[in-house]
């Protein structure tokens, strides 16, 4: 390494602890699980939105209050937000280092949690009021 001309460590010693963080397997697994869930859910979601296009406010409320659309929407929102939180996490660890990485990861999780809460609350409120 150019910045350590007097480094006496072995090549192995220099690269140890610089590799994978060893905690990515669970994240990668859940990215895949949610992605598989999102294939049919996205088709259903697009179908639902196309159906809602020709409805007014009361029609939209009535449609979203039915069980299947409400459950579909909840599943899409939850799987989607977990998926996007994990996706953004991998973008952050690829491009941001050090202290800013910790802030970015925290902001990502908080944003996703708030968004999920808001969407679930709104969907349940439509369904139950």
């Amino acid at each position, binding site marked *: 390494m150019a910045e*350590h001309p007097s480094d006496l460590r072995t090549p192995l*010693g220099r690269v*140890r*602890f*610089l590799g994978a963080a060893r905690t990515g397997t669970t994240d990668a697994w859940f990215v*895949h699980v949610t*992605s*598989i869930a*999102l*294939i049919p859910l*996205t088709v259903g979601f*697009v179908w639902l939105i*196309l159906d809602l*296009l*020709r409805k007014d*406010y*009361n029609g*939209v*409320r009535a449609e*979203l209050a039915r069980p299947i659309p409400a459950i579909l*929407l909840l599943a899409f*929102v939850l799987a*989607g*937000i977990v998926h*996007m939180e994990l*996706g*953004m996490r991998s*973008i952050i660890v*690829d*491009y941001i*280092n*050090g202290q800013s990485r910790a802030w970015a990861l925290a902001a990502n999780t908080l944003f996703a949690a708030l*968004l999920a809460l*808001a*969407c679930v*609350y*709104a*969907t349940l*409120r*439509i369904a139950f*009021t």
Partner: protein
Amino acid sequence: MASSDALPGPRRPRPLSPHLSVYRLTMTMAMSIVHRITGAALYVGVLLLAWFLIAASADAATFAVFSGFIQSFIGRLMLFGFTWALFHHLIGGIRHIVWDSGYGLDAPLRDQMAWATLIGGFALTIVVWGVGYAVR
């Protein structure tokens, strides 16, 4: 910082991904980049869905504000972009699942799959928007 250099582990800066410019651009690489960009766009685009759900859960006047925005030129443009990003990312995701399972990695097929992602994403977007304008 000689003292911290002597320590292994987290005190030394960890390596970042190699930069894009060191590689020759290929179709699979281009679609990998677009997959990430569409993913990041959908991350922001979900705010539209949240706005829609919150407005619909509130009252007719609040919903009218959302409805007016989404039917405006800017709103339609954003929804069109969201639709394309959604379909492109969906097909790209299926392609990645196929690759992760160990199939479709040979030279002609992997490029064809990358092209199919690009063409399929646009095609599905146009079909769904056509259906959208037809039904409403």
